[in-house]
């Protein structure tokens, strides 16, 4: 079925992940996201994970790497909607997402990105 859509709004690239992704699917999404930044400049990236019930070390790394690579392309990243249970689990796993800016929901994430411009 369908690839995860990559939206453009106000010059920001927005992705909303609402289903559990396999490692391969997560990697594909990362690739398409970074390609979309190369094709047309963007002012920021917003990754909404409010629909995700599980973020393990693999996906956490995908998030970190995506943000790091986008940064290299001059674009800031905001991750929104991390579920409380996911945040607790990441901490106990010993994984650190502090290098990625996070906000509670899409609206707040967009506000944060707008504020940086």
């Amino acid at each position, binding site marked *: 079925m369908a690839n995860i859509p990559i939206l453009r709004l106000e010059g920001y690239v927005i992705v909303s992940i609402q289903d559990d992704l396999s490692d391969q699917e997560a990697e594909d999404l990362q690739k398409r996201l970074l390609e979309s930044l190369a094709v047309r400049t963007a002012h920021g990236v917003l990754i909404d994970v409010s629909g995700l*019930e599980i973020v393990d*070390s693999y996906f956490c*790394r995908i998030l970190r790497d995506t943000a790091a690579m986008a940064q290299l392309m001059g674009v800031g990243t905001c991750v929104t909607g991390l579920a409380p249970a996911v945040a607790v689990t990441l901490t*106990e796993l*010993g994984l650190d997402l502090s290098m990625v800016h996070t906000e509670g929901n899409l609206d707040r994430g967009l506000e944060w990105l707008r504020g940086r411009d």
Partner: protein
Amino acid sequence: MPEIIIATNDDAAIVTSRGAVRELARSVGFGTVDQTKLATAVSEIVRNVVLYAKRGQVLFTICESNAGTRGIEVIIEDEGPGIQDLEIVLDGGYSTSGGFGRGISGARALVDEFNLESEPGQGTRVEMRKWL
């Protein structure tokens, strides 16, 4: 008798396993945070099987402690190359694949009981339990 047995031979099995155990945990009465913790622990260990041993299986069983508390038992086993430096791996931060090296040590922190047996050349068996 396990409630669920899943062959873990590929990428998709990681998704299936963590989804299945999450559902099972929910049905047993675990809250969201514990569902997520258990499912994440399973995700880490099953990925190791797929990554390092290619194939294996995972068994989920609803169990009861001596004190009468209900819980879920997870057994994940493979007949892959086994783990050389068990002590180091259990401490965490060690990876032969450029990973975070947090899979095993992290999974251990997320459950109530964690048991890892591994014989180089024979395979690896992880037993985890989480109580309500």
